[in-house]
């Protein structure tokens, strides 16, 4: 049991080959690893690139699935100004961005 836990921890801390390449060669992680790229203009506009799908849309909460996790936005009067295969623009009063 103890061994199993230790192995799981090791697995979590292990850095993948891609991540290593990004680190060593100083490559953009959004291109190589497909990480979500977030660009915020104040707390009123947010652009999200490299997302997979919308999990939940509500006036005060938007949950978006990405390749390596989930992004939860909370705020007020949240509006998806537009979205397409690559990019999404969210406007409104953004209070919190949480990665999980």
């Amino acid at each position, binding site marked *: 049991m103890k061994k199993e836990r230790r192995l799981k921890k090791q697995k979590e801390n292990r850095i993948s080959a891609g991540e290593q390449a990004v680190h060593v060669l100083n490559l953009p992680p959004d291109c190589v690893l497909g990480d979500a790229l977030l660009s915020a203009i104040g707390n009123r506009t947010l652009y999200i690139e490299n997302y997979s799908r919308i999990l939940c849309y509500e006036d005060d909460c938007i949950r978006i699935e990405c390749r390596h996790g989930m992004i939860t936005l909370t705020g007020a009067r949240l509006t998806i*100004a537009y979205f397409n295969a690559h990019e999404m623009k969210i406007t409104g009063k953004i209070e919190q961005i949480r990665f999980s």
Partner: protein
Amino acid sequence: MVQHGFQWFCGTVTIAVFGEEIQRFFNICRANELFLRDIQTENGQTVFSMNAAEVKKLKPILKKTHTRIRILKKKGLPFLRLKIRKKRSFAVGVILAGMMLYSLTFFIWNITVEGNYSYTAGEITDFLNSMQITGGILKANVDCDAIEKAIRNQYNDITWVCAELNGTRLIIHIKENYDTQIPKEEVDPYHLTAKRDAVVTSILTRSGTPLVKQGDTVKAGDILVSGIVSVYDDNGEPMDHLLVNADADIYGETTYTYHKEIPLSYREKEYTGNEIVNYYCMIDRGRLLLQTQKTEFADYDRLTDDHWVSVLKNFYLPVHYGTETIREYRWVDKTYTEAEANQAAEADFNLFLEKFIKKGIQIIEKNDTIQIIGENCVVDGTVTVVEPIGKVRPVEQSELPEINTEGTEKTE
């Protein structure tokens, strides 16, 4: 802006979506490359906008996700076109109005005079009217060069004129000469004579024989530069004479006197506060009063506030509108106090000085005395100025010198 224009051109539909799997609906739309915009929650329902042409593509997605939609709003050109088809007469009216506006651009509706100082805009416009250049003339019939030439010929002291056609406006730009008076073109040879008693301060002769020099005192009518130029022989005897147009810049110091009596008692208008406002609309010259109230006032002022209808800055239409205010007043007898009388007298004297300043004449000295004599406030003043004093006068036959031709024949 461009994007909004494009969306309006293609037509935009605002749709409310209902059901359990709204997120799935959005994700499938994205996978099918349907462009959804402005997804927001309104009154508890999820609303989005999309191009009108793509609405039909939603049908299989709605079926798949068990969602329903309701169209809330339609806007854009495709829907406007449908509306217009229903209201054909309205569309015809719009097209006719457009055609009428376009046809109005072929005419001149507004004539503006710019840069005028001593001539009023009305004076210049009246002159143009006498040339058949009036509001409503076809632009093709307006010859700007001919207008410029006619104005230059008619008004001697307008030194520069430019007629500009801009939109439905004819703008006459003029530049007046108020420094010196340009002499009318004389055919016969002429002298330059003094127009006032003066002391010559400077003289620069270009043609003719100068008869005065700097510092000379001259009287009105004295010849300053003669138009007769004598030709001398080897002995210094006058052999012949030439007649020329005397030309020189002659400045002299002259004195003007000023005398004015201002009565201490005067009448002044006092508005009673009663007024009538009439609204009017004017098409070309035909005036249509929209509201007419009878005037029962004995003495009144009529103030007109006129507005010209223009679509753009230079696209004037032959339509005016405005208000006509009739204000009642009565005459009130008043008397100047000593301070008021002095102030009024000083203002009058300054107005007299301003005429020189506007003409570019240099004022050397000014003196004025204000006295109250009996019922009048009397202003006496003198102003010494330096101004051009030359005036044209034709050479008379009697002024020509006699040439003794006999002596010359003998020597030959």
